[in-house]
């Protein structure tokens, strides 16, 4: 029989993940039944909690706070060791002393999104009504819901206005939602590699991922926690498909080409002969160690529903009318998931609203994920934009670079 190796099962036990969902290795803001999160679907979610990390110090004026909004498959562990994987934070290249998001100048906050699985209430959290994981009983959430929850967190932290809201991809969508919903609370905004609405192609890729999860027999209509299983194969396939969309043909070619993995000749099997196959399988299997399958369904859905213009009579510029927020929009040349044309459409709408906007397209062959990688041109822009925003807000940002 032809040799086949399937995706390995996660080495971190489901219980660790379940524990992290309810009792995260992060600071937690709890909201009781008297403080419900009003969801777009019409449901009041209560009680609920938000898990968040902070870096740096809030100044006396409470004017140096920057909110980072994380992307679909990331979490609040921006610049610290990840509690499940033990790996470095996902944006340590950007956040830290003397980094563009300088922790010696700014107070940096990142919270796990509502619907996530790292400590903010989501489908992996325990439903107080049943004592079991929410699973598919969790209400469908949207990007505006995520932002509403973040606004409640900022109220709790007594931060009225953010110096900047920054994020890439799904994080960028949240940034845009922040400016549309709470323009007066956002002094400057840095949306990266994102769009004001999810495209048909992107919805299609998400549907592929969701169907992969739901086709896994271990998914059990989202009840896998109770049955002590996990649809890790389906989720890994979803991640593999997603990961391809985060890269580019040129990046894959440069990184792997048609090179073989630990062999010189094809094995005439379905084993991972090619390095690119081996890489994707690794991406898939490491993802399932830290991510909840149902959470993936909910968060992809939230992105699919996102369309700022639709909430403003179909006119995007309407969403930003009279806005005072300073914008810096960034896209990457090889990003085909959120291509530059989408950022340009945003910039045109902002121009039509007379917003103060900068826009830079950065040349790189690394695809959508470029915002997470070492792209000095992007760092320089982020650093300069934050410095000028800080200066305009009367912050002393003279120290350091």
């Amino acid at each position, binding site marked *: 029989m032809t040799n086949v190796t399937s995706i390995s099962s996660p080495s971190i036990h489901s219980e660790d993940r379940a524990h992290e969902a309810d009792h995260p290795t992060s600071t937690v803001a709890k909201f009781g039944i008297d403080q419900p999160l009003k969801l777009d679907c019409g449901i009041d979610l209560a009680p609920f909690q938000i898990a968040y990390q902070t870096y740096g110090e809030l100044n006396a004026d409470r004017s140096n706070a920057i909110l980072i909004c994380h992307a679909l498959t990331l979490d609040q562990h921006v610049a610290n060791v990840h509690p499940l994987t033990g790996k470095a934070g996902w944006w340590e290249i950007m956040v830290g002393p003397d980094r563009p998001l300088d922790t010696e100048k700014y107070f940096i906050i990142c919270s796990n999104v509502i619907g996530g699985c790292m400590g903010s209430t989501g489908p992996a959290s325990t439903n107080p009504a049943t004592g079991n994981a929410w699973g598919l009983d969790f209400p469908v959430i949207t990007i505006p819901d995520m932002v509403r929850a973040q606004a409640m967190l900022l109220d709790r932290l007594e931060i009225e206005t953010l110096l900047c809201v920054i994020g890439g991809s799904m994080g960028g969508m949240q940034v845009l939602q922040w400016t549309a919903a709470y323009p007066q609370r956002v002094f400057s905004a840095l949306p990266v590699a994102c769009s004001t609405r999810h495209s048909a192609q992107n919805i299609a890729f998400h549907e592929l991922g969701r169907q992969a999860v739901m086709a896994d027999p271990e998914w059990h209509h989202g009840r896998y926690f109770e049955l002590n299983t996990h649809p890790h194969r389906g989720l890994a396939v979803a991640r593999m498909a997603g990961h391809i969309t985060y890269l580019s043909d040129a990046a894959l070619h440069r990184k792997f080409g048609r090179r073989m993995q630990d062999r010189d000749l094809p094995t005439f099997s379905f084993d991972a002969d090619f390095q690119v196959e081996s890489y994707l399988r690794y991406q898939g299997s490491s993802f399932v160690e830290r991510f909840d399958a149902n959470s993936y369904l909910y968060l992809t859905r939230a992105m699919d529903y996102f369309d700022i213009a639709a909430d403003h009579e179909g006119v995007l510029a309407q969403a930003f009318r009279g806005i005072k927020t300073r914008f810096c929009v960034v896209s990457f040349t090889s990003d085909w998931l959120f291509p530059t044309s989408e950022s340009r459409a945003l910039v045109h709408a902002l121009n039509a609203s007379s917003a103060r906007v*900068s826009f830079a397209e950065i040349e790189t062959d690394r695809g959508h994920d470029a915002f997470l990688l070492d792209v000095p*041109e992007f760092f320089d822009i982020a650093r300069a934009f934050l410095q000028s925003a800080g200066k305009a807000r009367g912050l002393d940002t003279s120290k350091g670079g």
Partner: protein
Amino acid sequence: MTLQEQTLPLGGVAPDRTGKHRTDHLMVAEMIPAGSKVLDVGCGDGELLQLLESRGIDGRGIEISREGVNRCVARGLAVVQGDADTDLVNYPDDAFDYVILSQTLQATRQPKVVLENLLRIGRRAIVSFPNFGFWKMRLQLLVGGHMPRTENLPATWYDTPNIHFCTIKDFVQLCDEINVKMERAVALDLYGRPVPLTLPWWVWNMFGEQGVFLLSRGGVGK
């Protein structure tokens, strides 16, 4: 047009040898009252925009080169990457008090359309360009039989970004044709000094190395 072509004298003018700012920039800045909202089309590395902002003017920019945009953002300016030929259509009517096109007109594919857009987006436009009727240019073509090259326009015909040269006289004619009113006109000589106002047009067209024009929309039915 690349940043280098914007900042080096290639498509532009010699820097002011005495002060910090280029004379044509100072000339432009002097035409705009504080508090105005301004769009600088082809803003290069943001030198003029920064000068304007330092004088209390709310400035925005469009620049085609990535390097230029990045340097502008680094200066804290609001600049978007874009192309004068294709992106001006996306700006709404009357969005700005002034739209500036500094040493860029000759590098656009459709100068007439660009000029019309400038005065649609802005209530006034300030346009500066190198004058191809400058005596040195004429002399080179007449005597040398070559396409002219000067200190300020050193590119050869085959590698120049400037594809639509005109003379001051030509520009005045275009403004007439599209019903654009000329509120102020200044010709600068090779050293960036204004050619005296009292001299007739043909002198300007001969001795002006570049022209700086403050334009507004002509009356209805002209």
